[in-house]
């Protein structure tokens, strides 16, 4: 058998195909890193910082403090120790799964051969299956490296900390359990999502798969933020319920891998029935990803070339056109507005960026809702104004306005901006177009949804007052966001991130906390009488007028910025601080 295998591998065509596979795999890894993780105009240092934050948070913030915790738990009852250890292990597993899902969402496009691949490699003597196999191998390589980076540091520290307790297994065993359970959880997530993508592409096409990536990114960001900010405080309660009645949680994949962790670390079979699920589901998705990626490779390759691209988001563009004709005055402003809408809805990079902001908004927005929702502090009241409900649209507005402003800064096709350079719109026109874009795509939809919600839940007068307050708050925020805006949306150069990694985080965090906690309380109080509501609205309108007047004065002689002006970057550069 071995000699036959050797003979088969010795065949020149198989050797050549293996050589092709290696070349394409190497190129695929580069492409994956270049086009998705380290985009051309992204700063590698910034990317490294984000990656370090993602990888080092579990070991440093969660695992390291456990040395002290387990020292204090030496004399605690066994049931309590088990509950705490299970909760912590569930956290590591859930975190790994979410981080891997985020990686899958970010690398969505580069996981499988696309049109460019077909046009470049398809013309060469390369089997479609070799190309698909190389892409798959690269994705698996990157996924494994990522999962290892996420899991291993925490595994070492946490195993060392927890295994000091006599009820917890020995260090090597806990370490092995941690690594196996978290890596398998990550693999199951990554391979499952890759299989899902391949199946969606086969059954519904690339467009639906694209939309799925946005949803996935949005969901993972929401869940990652919630996992960090909220889960540690409620997880022990969830685990207590799980240990009491684990059959009710049999649907949750983190439970399966937590069971696997417990089983390997201490031979604990309290959740034993789920161990088999962890192993069998991981094995199934592993086989599935090979089947759905390799078998239809030739068919998918041909289909990619034969399907003609269609216009994306036709509905939004038509709606925006009608809106612009009715409301936006001036041909230049209208053109810039329409260009902005089309760029935003048809550029994948920008929609992904907005999905990230939206995910953050939802995650942060519901933070005030969760304690009453989970009955940790009172109960959730929806049929009357409360500060925690008002906080939700405020936070959404905050992220929508600044998310859109951030998206405007990134050009779609920088080389094509010559047409705008020739026409040279004024800064005033550019600001007007940007304002309409933010109002139409961010402020107005949130205010309308909020109005519908409050009309359904609250008395009409209170609902109208609350919605007016949210609308005016959004307009003030829009004026603040555009106070020093001199670019043309989607057409001006984006400063390289190395130069622009600014120390504005503190400013944004303070502003966000003000919005979420102080302003929501203020608006809640303002809604107590119509007089205070009117006063708040009047203050908002005065602020809008004041900022617009000030900006008109400051920017009256400015021309739009198309190129990067390095002298404007005066804020602290964290990249340099690290070097």
């Amino acid at each position, binding site marked *: 058998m071995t000699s036959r295998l050797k003979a088969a591998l010795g065949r020149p065509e198989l050797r050549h195909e293996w050589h092709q596979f290696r070349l394409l795999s190497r190129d695929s890894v580069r492409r994956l890193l270049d086009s998705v993780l380290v985009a*051309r105009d992204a700063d590698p240092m910034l990317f490294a910082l984000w990656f370090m934050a993602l990888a080092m948070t579990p070991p440093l913030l969660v695992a390291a403090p456990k040395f002290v915790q387990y020292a204090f738990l030496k004399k605690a009852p066994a049931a309590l120790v088990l509950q705490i250890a299970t909760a912590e292990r569930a956290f590591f597993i859930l975190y790994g799964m979410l981080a891997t899902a985020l990686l899958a969402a970010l690398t969505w496009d580069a996981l499988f051969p696309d049109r460019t691949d077909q*046009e470049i490699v398809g013309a060469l*003597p390369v089997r479609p299956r070799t190309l698909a196999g190389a892409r798959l191998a690269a994705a698996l390589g990157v996924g494994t490296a990522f999962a290892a980076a996420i899991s291993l540091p925490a595994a070492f520290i946490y195993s060392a900390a927890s295994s000091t307790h006599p009820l917890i297994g020995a260090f090597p065993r806990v370490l092995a359990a941690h690594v196996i359970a978290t890596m398998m959880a990550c693999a199951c997530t990554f391979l499952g999502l890759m299989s899902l993508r391949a199946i969606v592409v086969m059954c519904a096409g690339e467009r639906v798969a694209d939309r799925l990536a946005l949803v996935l990114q949005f969901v993972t960001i929401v869940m990652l933020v919630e996992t960090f900010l909220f889960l540690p405080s409620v997880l022990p309660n969830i685990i207590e319920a799980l240990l009491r009645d684990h059959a009710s949680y049999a649907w949750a994949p983190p439970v399966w891998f937590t069971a696997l962790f417990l089983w390997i670390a201490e031979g604990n079979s309290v959740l034993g029935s789920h161990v088999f699920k962890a192993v069998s589901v991981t094995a199934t998705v592993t086989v599935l990803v090979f089947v759905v990626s390799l078998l239809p490779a030739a068919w998918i390759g041909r289909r990619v070339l*034969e399907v003609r691209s269609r216009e994306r988001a036709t509905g939004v563009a038509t709606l925006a056109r009608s809106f612009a004709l009715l409301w936006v005055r001036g041909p230049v402003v209208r053109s810039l507005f329409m260009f902005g809408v089309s760029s935003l809805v048809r550029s994948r990079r920008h929609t992904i960026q907005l999905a990230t902001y939206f995910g953050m908004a939802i995650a942060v927005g519901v933070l005030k809702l969760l304690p009453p929702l989970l009955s940790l502090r009172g109960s959730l009241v929806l049929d009357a104004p409360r500060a925690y409900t008002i906080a939700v649209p405020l936070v959404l507005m905050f992220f929508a306005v600044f998310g859109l402003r951030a998206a405007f800064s990134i050009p779609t096709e920088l080389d094509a901006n010559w047409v705008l350079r020739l026409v040279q719109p004024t800064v005033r026109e550019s600001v007007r177009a940007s304002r309409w874009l933010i109002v139409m795509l961010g402020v107005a939809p949130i205010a309308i949804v909020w109005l519908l919600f409050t009309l359904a839940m609250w008395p009409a007068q209170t609902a109208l007052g609350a919605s007016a307050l949210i609308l005016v708050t959004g307009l003030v925020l829009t004026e603040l966001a555009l106070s020093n805006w001199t670019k043309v949306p989607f057409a001006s150069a984006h400063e390289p991130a190395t130069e622009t990694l600014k120390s504005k985080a503190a400013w944004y965090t303070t502003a966000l906390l003000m919005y979420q906690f102080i302003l929501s309380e203020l608006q809640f109080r303002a809604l107590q009488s119509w007089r205070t509501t009117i006063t708040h609205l009047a203050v908002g309108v005065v602020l809008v007028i004041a900022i617009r007047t000030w900006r008109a004065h400051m920017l009256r002689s400015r021309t739009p910025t198309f190129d990067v002006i390095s002298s404007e970057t005066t804020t602290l550069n964290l990249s340099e601080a690290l070097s």
Partner: protein
Amino acid sequence: MLDMIDVSKSYRGVAAVRMLSLSARPGQVVGLLGPNGSGKSTTVKMLIGLLRPSRGQIRWQGEDIQPQLLDYQRLVGYVPEEPRLYAYLKAPEYLELVGGLHGIEHRTLRQRINRYLELFGLEHDTEAPMSAFSKGMRQKVLLSAALLHDPEIVILDEPSSGLDVAFTLILRRLVMTLAARGKTIIYSSHEMDMVEKICNDVVILHRGHVVAHDSVTRLRELVHAASLEDVFAALAVDQDVDRIGTELATVAAE
């Protein structure tokens, strides 16, 4: 001999090419002409095996290419219409990838790459990613990639796009020399002057059909035209070019 026999191609029921037949012998340069949307790109993509015909056959040396597609593709060198390449790679890296996929031994490949880069004047641009390249520079890389493995069939789709005058002249000499060495060459272009000078035979496509397939001289005689451009205008141009041109110049002034 490369033959397309009664080839048709439809995209979701919409015909792009209908009952197309053409042939090209070794040593011959066949020009592929046609207005936008005439089916040129689809024809080229079928010729290189990227697309499979809905009907008909493409044959090389009398054999259908589909059952032995990989063997056929080993013989093909292709320059695409759009300068599609992995722009994050440097030119030598890209050529190493393509040459490696063709199975060229590393040392030979390095020598050939250096020679091509030198001849195309790219030897000082080997450290820059191709994303920073001009259209002409990318076209030179694509030409190098198409020739690296000394192909028997060379399919060029708008190869002079972005090239300056000197390199357009070099390209002309290159195509003629390849033909003299017995290569089969398909040259798709909108540049009548170039096609007239280098092609033995010309195929004119119009709405997915072949409307002419003969030598330039014979076509000129048949249509009583002074140049290939006039032949093309007579066979493949539906529009009233004078009227549209005049109106285009005055639309904004009305």
